[in-house]
């Protein structure tokens, strides 16, 4: 299947830069994964981690080669595990399409006219160079045509999305560049498609009443989460006061909930349940008890002893300096687990096209005890280790789990060309 085409354009070019370019990606949600940017990648869901890695490299300004390196870290041998793939590279003067497997890219308009880029049966991929195409449509096989819901089409300037269909070109409702007053609604823009869905017999109404799929768009703004997305993002309001007042009318049943049950306070003490001594496998026997082991120490919990005090700053390669006033977790895709109640650590992803850096590789935080007042670095059991160079000293490899005091001028090497410079606060 392919997407319905947009209104004819002709005026647009494939250039990624330049204020006149209003071309953008639009997609329908679905099972495929797409990273959209200067270098865009579409592939099957099981390739998502590597597509996300490629996206991170592209978003960080990586070259086309570096993006492809993140996508295929093992080189061409990785292609054996990648049956279907499409890559669209937008260069200033041309658009290059790589396609492999069952995917097809339809190009419309531009120098040389309409083209279809097909990758079926290739050993590596097929490469097409397009000059000023007006529109590209990536044709994705429907994974489960019987089950494919009819979904609206969303527009996105760049991002990581799950797609059933993907098109690049002028958004149908796009305004001229100067007309900034004409504004699209918050993403994603539902763009009603007049054409009927090409998939056979979707069954969207099955349980729509019980459980509406399309949640209202959740918008993240500086103003906070608010159900209707109204706020001016330039005004950061305070934390909304949490209700201390008696509870409102006590129904917990929203539109998504099970059939309504009775109101809370009116409930009389219940009759005894059917459980008690009954069967030992009865999971209703869950009860609260004492911990058999003392609470384990939590290496990632909380910042240093004086929250909010900046003990150092770090700079990743030549990036913006970052204050160390709380724990910072550095890695390919860092995450924090089993934290206690306290200031959240900052997650600082760094590009690692060769996958040399572990997903959560290193922690840098304000030190405690003898390290009070300075930053300490701890390798979190990374695969390839961490090397620290203190001024005037030979390089030292960090021992996993052991905090290492940092002084201004220290340089931490994570691998893959990522160097963290320690600066004065």
């Amino acid at each position: 299947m392919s997407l319905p085409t947009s209104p004819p354009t002709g005026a647009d070019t494939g250039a990624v830069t330049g204020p006149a370019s209003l071309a953008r990606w639009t997609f329908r949600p679905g099972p495929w994964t797409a990273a959209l940017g200067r270098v865009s990648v579409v592939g099957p869901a099981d390739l998502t981690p590597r597509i996300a890695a490629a996206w991170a490299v592209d978003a960080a300004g990586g070259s086309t080669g570096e993006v492809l390196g993140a996508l295929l870290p093992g080189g061409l041998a990785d292609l054996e595990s990648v049956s279907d793939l499409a890559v669209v590279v937008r260069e200033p003067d041309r658009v290059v399409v790589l396609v492999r497997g069952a995917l097809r890219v339809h190009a419309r308009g531009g120098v040389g006219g309409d083209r279809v880029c097909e990758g079926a049966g290739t050993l590596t991929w097929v490469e097409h160079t397009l000059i000023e195409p007006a529109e590209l449509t990536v044709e994705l096989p429907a994974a489960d045509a019987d089950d494919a819901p009819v979904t609206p089409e969303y527009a996105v300037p760049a991002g990581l999305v799950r797609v059933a269909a993907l098109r690049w070109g002028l958004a149908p409702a796009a305004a001229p560049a100067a007309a900034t007053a004409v504004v699209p609604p918050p993403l994603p823009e539902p763009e009603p498609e007049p054409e009927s869905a090409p998939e056979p017999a979707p069954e969207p109404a099955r349980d729509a009443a019980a459980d509406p799929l399309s949640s209202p768009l959740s918008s993240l703004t500086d103003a906070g989460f608010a159900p209707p997305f109204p706020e001016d993002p330039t005004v950061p309001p305070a934390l909304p006061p949490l209700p201390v007042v008696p509870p409102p009318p006590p129904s917990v049943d929203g539109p998504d909930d099970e059939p309504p049950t009775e109101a809370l306070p009116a409930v009389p003490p219940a009759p005894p349940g059917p459980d008690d001594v009954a069967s030992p496998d009865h999971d209703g026997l869950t009860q609260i008890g004492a911990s058999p082991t003392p609470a384990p120490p939590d290496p990632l919990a909380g910042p240093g002893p004086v929250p909010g005090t900046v003990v150092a700053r770090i700079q990743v390669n030549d990036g913006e300096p970052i204050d160390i006033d709380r724990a910072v977790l550095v890695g390919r895709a860092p995450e924090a687990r089993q934290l206690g109640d306290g200031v959240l650590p900052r997650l600082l992803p760094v590009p690692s096209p060769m996958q040399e850096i572990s997903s959560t590789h290193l922690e840098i935080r304000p030190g405690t005890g003898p390290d009070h007042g300075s930053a300490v670095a701890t390798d979190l059991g990374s695969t390839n280790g961490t090397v620290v160079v203190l001024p005037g000293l030979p390089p030292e490899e960090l021992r996993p789990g052991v905090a290492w005091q940092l002084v201004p001028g220290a340089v931490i090497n994570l691998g893959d060309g990522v160097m963290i410079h320690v600066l004065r606060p």
Partner: protein
Amino acid sequence: MSRVELHHGAATDVGLVREVNEDAYLVAPPVFVVADGMGGHDRGDIASRIVVEEFRRLAEAGYPAHSGSEVIAATLRAAQDRIGAYDADRRAEGAADFNAGTTAVVALLVEQDGAPRWLLANLGDSRIYRCSGGALEQVSVDHSVVQELITAGALRPEEAEHHPERHVITRALGGQGAIEADYFLLPLASAERLLLCTDGVSGMVADDVLAGILAGAPDPRDAADRVVAAAVAAGGRDNATAVVIDVVGWSADDGYDSDASRRSLQEKLGALP
């Protein structure tokens, strides 16, 4: 500023043995909760519904995008206080030794350095799983006697099923003492799908079966339905509840668009001519 689109599905079933469904859940994007009330004769369903109510109020009131765990902690405290008040009322009416309790798992979308994150919280033995790259992984760590023994190396996982204290959880809402949830902060890219469920699901359906169900159901509504159906089909010994949340897409900020949106809003408000 970034924008995130979530799709979700939810299902719950009383199961084949219990008479009351003491589970409760909330799907109020960007806030999602599953709670498993405890102690049938103590009306655990009240406790789990109080938790859901408090988080619904949080979702309706909104919260700052850069929130940390304090937002969840304050909401859990409010629920704890109400459960305590409910207990006191019942005891005053003559119910001896009344103690309602509930677990809670929470998923909240927050933002850090302009990037969206999942802020997750766990109290008790309900679970949070994530699907990423086709694999299923348990994110939360049960607050249970058997999990703590396993973590300490004193119990092998395969022995847990028959341990006499397998029903005993070590942290929960309700009852006495402090409530200290575990928090987890994940980048959205590493959790394209989240599953929040009660032990009526995780105790009945093995993780590999769960992984297969989730991988085979692209629509989160189907996924939630099938997960709960599998728990019931496996014996349905407990209430089973599942909430499935998919990150369908998010976009980095686009300078042109956000600037234009802001201007448009100001125009609507009359701030610009």
